[in-house]
């Protein structure tokens, strides 16, 4: 199944209320330097393209770029790392955000029950831990609330390591947004919003991947 590029995936989901970072797509080191200055340092640079699904595994993500020189160097490297099969590529620049808590949200298509919305505890251990919950599309606000309470580690939603509690409404907005996106786009087969980093109590999608029917 084809996937949308990270930028297109985020744009699609953002249109339904999934919070994403302000990002810029650039295609040269000069453009990158200007954009990064506007965004404010530090920034993250990623190589982005419709055919690129697993950026981390290929080393196509550069974190914590602190100044113009670092941004230029990273952009040049990333563009050079593109392979012919990647098709049209660009470099995505985003502010570097950090938070202790990571969630994962998404859409999947179940062979028996059809499309579902997921919420889970994210991070690199997400699949091993498997603290996730599902509902069938479409969901109501009450369903989204229940999903938060389903999580075994829902205690993470309270104050945590000096960070404020997670704004539950902002999390339910993500879930309802995903459900709405699925309804509006029957061609969506799956979506990953991973990670959904919690910054000052508010979730923000740092990466997104939407898979569509051919």
């Amino acid at each position, binding site marked *: 199944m084809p996937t949308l590029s990270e930028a297109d995936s985020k744009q699609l989901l953002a249109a339904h209320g999934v919070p994403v970072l302000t990002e810029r797509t650039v295609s040269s080191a000069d453009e990158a330097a200007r954009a990064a200055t506007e965004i404010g340092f530090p920034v993250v640079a990623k190589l982005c393209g419709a055919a690129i699904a697993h950026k981390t595994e290929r080393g196509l993500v550069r974190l914590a770029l602190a100044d113009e020189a670092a941004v230029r160097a990273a952009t040049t490297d990333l563009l050079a790392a593109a392979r012919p099969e990647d098709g049209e590529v660009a470099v995505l620049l985003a502010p570097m955000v950090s938070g202790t808590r990571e969630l994962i949200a998404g859409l999947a*298509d179940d062979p028996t029950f059809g499309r579902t919305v997921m919420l889970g505890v994210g991070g690199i251990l997400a699949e091993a831990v498997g603290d996730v919950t*599902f509902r*069938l599309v479409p969901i109501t606000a*009450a369903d989204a609330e*229940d999903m938060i309470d389903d999580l075994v580690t829902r205690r993470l939603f309270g104050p945590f390591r000096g960070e404020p509690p997670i704004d539950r409404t902002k999390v339910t907005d993500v879930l309802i947004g995903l459900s709405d996106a699925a309804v509006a786009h029957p061609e969506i087969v799956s979506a990953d919003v*991973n990670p959904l980093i919690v910054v000052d109590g508010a979730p923000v999608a740092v990466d997104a991947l939407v898979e569509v029917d051919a």
Partner: protein
Amino acid sequence: MTSRAQDFGALFDPKGVIVAGASTHPGKFGFVALHNLLAAGYKGNVFATNLEGAPVLGVDTVADVDDLPDGEADLVFVCTPAKTNIDLLRKCAAKGVRAAFLTSAGYGEAGPEGKAAQDELVRVANELDILLAGPNGQGVISTPASMCAQIVAPYPPAGRIGIASQSGNFVSSFMNYARHYGVGVSRAVSAGNAAAVTVPDFLDFYADDPETDVGLAYVEGIADGRAFFERMRSVAERMPLVVVKGGASDVGARAAASHTGSLATDDRVFDGACRQAGVVRAATIEEAYEAAATFATQPLPKGPNVCVVSTAGGWGVVTADAISRTRGLRLLPLPDDLKAELDRHLPPRWSRNNPIDMAGGETKDTIPTVLETAARHPAVDAVVFLGMGIQGNQGRMEQEGPFYPDHGLERIVGYHERQDRRFTETAAALSKDVGKPILTATELAITDRDNPAVAGCRDSGQMCYGSANRAVTALDHLWSYAGYRRRRSD
């Protein structure tokens, strides 16, 4: 009443039943079916067919349905071979039969030929406007009609639980629990191959059935999940519905391009669908029965705050642990006014916290007084009541020992028995009075169901739980259902 509801009426409240294929051989299903129907005391007309027209269990049989009177039976219970059943259905329809339960095998479970025979059966039943249950099913129970049309035991006590199952064996399991614990059943049916009428169809009927307060279902191998979900949600809007699903571990993680897809196992998606539909999902058959029995006999809690009342320490401690492990329940920190009130009834060494451990400081009336004080306090939403049956258990030992009835034993044993029975009867009456769940738990519910405390629960129409953990699990299901409904009615 819709015509479909009338057809279900013919299945569950028939004015007469024809047992087709009654046998004189006590080892055959055709004998057992007639036996069970008669033994349970079915009050309607009973007819039977037998190839030789031989009497069976005192019932005169006919060789041919044509020889039966018109309009005297509206249910046929079929124990005849598959190949004869089309003809049988046509003849029954001509006699006014509106519903058929087929135990016969050799249909959808038996390869392509059987599947073809099943399709033909459904087609003919539709043509004749007969409600078709089964085939390859175990039977149908309806306690308001004193009807046990079933090729196996047991016949359960009457009650408010409506059972529908894709596996006949689990209908028996649920009803065996009902016999043991005393919380009974209104209707029960095994869907067999569910060629025409499915488990959701039966549950849909139960949801509007004045005899049924709670649904209890076993399902496996759901084909159309979306339709199943919509039916379950509609049922759960009308009555609490407890579901246990087999095959939960069938499929593990799937190969998927997305993280979400690989996390979306069958079991997690089914679990989410149940939560979204307001369906109570139980992990095991016994948990499912106990949840259903609790819905059938206890008021719904209005909040999560549980108070544990115990005659001794250890029981209370493990019950507090069990409450802390639940999804939704909370061990209520005792309010000061409740502590002060309890101080008046208990010796200074009582726990002065929740669990309320009476520390053996009981006079004749301490236990009912403390229980009532706790249950009536506005901060308490539910009570788990522990340590009952101890006196009756000692009474039993004394009664069975070599000294009974001398040495004053007869008198003290009688006192113990009356006290234990009174404690649990008080709990049941108090629960009704204050409109809060009060769950009595002791292992004696399993090890000695004649214990007077256990019998007191049963005779009051309540369940005595086999352990505090099981009571807590059942209570958690009640609260999760009540919470779901509350969040959607604001």
